[in-house]
């Protein structure tokens, strides 16, 4: 029982962590906040469903194709909408508002394209339950966990080892110095939005078989991810993962042992408490004036 709970908590927690990582990435690279991450996950899930179920593509192809499309979407949003807005001298709150309207548009688009019903994502594995060391586990849960961990590790190496990743970090730390060194700061910023959307979309494809795919599937995940990113120390990639896992465990264990009705309420209460007591988060990022 406890093992299944832990696996479940790790799964949902790493989903939050991965989506939250996107918030952190965007914040680090551009000092901005996007509230559309949850709906990016939703769009990713629908795209994945379409490729896998309707176009009969192999799962891995569906996943990679979705991630590619989501990357471009994020990049376009940053390059076209956000940059224009900033050029007009809008304050950062207006960018948040812009991302809120983007998320409304995305939900509406999803509604037109795929309808309002919950759609079943066909199972990816033949067996519905597998037995590992005497425990019955759902393979899709393990897949989600695996994909999340793979993405995190890949991102870690991309950011620390690849040339582009290093430029991204440099541009985030000191845009002036970075552009003086010949780093294309606008492109790295666009890429960070792209990667954030890509991660959210990709994770959408793998959680599709677990939760089903529907229009508002992203909003709660998006908010929890956000909460995780904050308590982990907003802008800190690793903090976002820790924070996401934290909320995964909180909600899994609260609903197993205390109350399932109030699990989200409790998560948000914790978030608010953390913001009051430790406004810089676990990893001490600057959030105050």
């Amino acid at each position, binding site marked *: 029982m406890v093992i299944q709970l832990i696996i479940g908590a790790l799964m949902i927690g790493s989903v939050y962590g991965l989506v939250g990582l996107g918030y952190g990435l965007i914040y680090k690279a551009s000092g901005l906040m996007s509230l559309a991450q949850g709906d990016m996950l939703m769009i990713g899930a629908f795209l994945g469903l379409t490729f896998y179920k309707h176009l009969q593509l192999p799962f891995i192809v569906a996943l990679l194709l979705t991630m590619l499309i989501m990357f471009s979407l994020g990049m376009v949003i940053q390059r076209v909408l956000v940059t224009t807005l900033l050029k007009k001298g*809008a304050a950062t709150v207006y960018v948040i508002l812009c991302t809120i*309207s983007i998320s409304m548009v995305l939900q509406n688009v999803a509604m037109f394209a795929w309808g309002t019903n919950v759609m079943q994502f066909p199972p990816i594995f033949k067996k519905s339950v597998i037995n590992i060391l005497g425990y019955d586990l759902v393979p899709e849960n393990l897949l989600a966990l695996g994909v999340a961990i793979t993405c995190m590790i890949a991102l870690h190496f991309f950011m620390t080892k690849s040339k582009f990743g290093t430029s991204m970090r440099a541009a985030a730390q000191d845009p002036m110095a970075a552009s003086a060194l010949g780093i294309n700061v606008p492109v790295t910023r666009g890429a960070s939005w792209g990667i954030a959307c890509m991660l959210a979309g990709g994770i959408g494809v793998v959680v599709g078989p677990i939760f089903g795919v529907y229009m508002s599937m992203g909003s709660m995940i998006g908010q929890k991810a956000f909460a995780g990113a904050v308590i982990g120390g907003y802008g800190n990639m690793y903090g976002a993962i820790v924070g996401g896992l934290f909320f995964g465990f909180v909600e899994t264990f609260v609903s197993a042992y205390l109350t399932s009705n109030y699990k*989200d309420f409790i998560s948000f209460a914790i978030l*608010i408490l953390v913001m009051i007591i430790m406004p810089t988060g676990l990893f001490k990022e600057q959030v105050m004036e």
Partner: protein
Amino acid sequence: MLNKIKTNKVASIAILLVAAVVAVMLRERYLALILCFICINSIAVTGLDILFGYTGQVSFGHAGFYAIGAYTSTLLAKNFGLNPLFTIIIGMIVSMIFGIIVAFPAAKLVKHFLSLLTIAFGQMVFMFVSVTDKLTNGYSGILNIPDVSIFGYPIKSNQAYFFFLLIITGLVLLFKRNLINSRVGRAFIAIRENPHAANGIGINVRFYKIVAFAASAMLTGLAGALYAHLVGFISPDTFMATQSNLFMTMLLFGGIATFLGPVIGSAILVVVTELMQSLVSYQMLMYALFILAVLFYLPNGVVGIAKWAKEMLTTKRQGKSRVNTTEYHN
């Protein structure tokens, strides 16, 4: 002098026109209901304006205060049989108290984190009313909320309720104008413009941010209570995050930090929403487009355009217009 007469004339004609439209609308129950919604939203959005427009503190969780006002008044009126006129006031005060509670941490946070805190607050209220079945009847909501009655005469028709709301809206706007044109209002605006300089010139920034939150929550709570007694039914659906975003859209579209912006924004969005009843599925898209239109083309909303037009007419000969339609109200 000539200009002044002209503006007065224009204003009088506008008021007469509005009055005529209102008179026609009042002949029908449904149209009167729309007028009531415009008043209620105007009050809620005026509350948001005090916080966001004047003090520069964003909130994406005002649906939470709206819900607190609505549920407090409803539960007290229904469970204890108290006079709704009285419970509305309690709803307002409870909402204000929550405003102050939220403001304590909020007054320390910068924009992004403030946005998040207010979102979390709105979500918590929504979840609470959704799952606390015993108290709020959960997702099914509460039916048969008693009507407001004055001196024992219940206000049953939408027409009568509209006049009741008109008086309250008028008072709210008057109080808002007084507040903004005072020492306290100047402190709000100073905080929005430059919190460090405000602090340096003797303004207790934290205190005034809390005051702004309290006033804002109070008005939005009042609107929620008035809504509950108008419609006679409330359920969590009305108080989702979308409602917070809708208040924000109304404010931005009407014109932020202006006297009439909240009223104009509410009127336009209420009417458009009603006109689109048959196209409900496009509603979200429409709100989104309204926000994007404001963000990209009209940062000062409809009032901004009106001001600009007026400037253009009056300063045609002097050349440059002072009102800049494309300047953001940061």
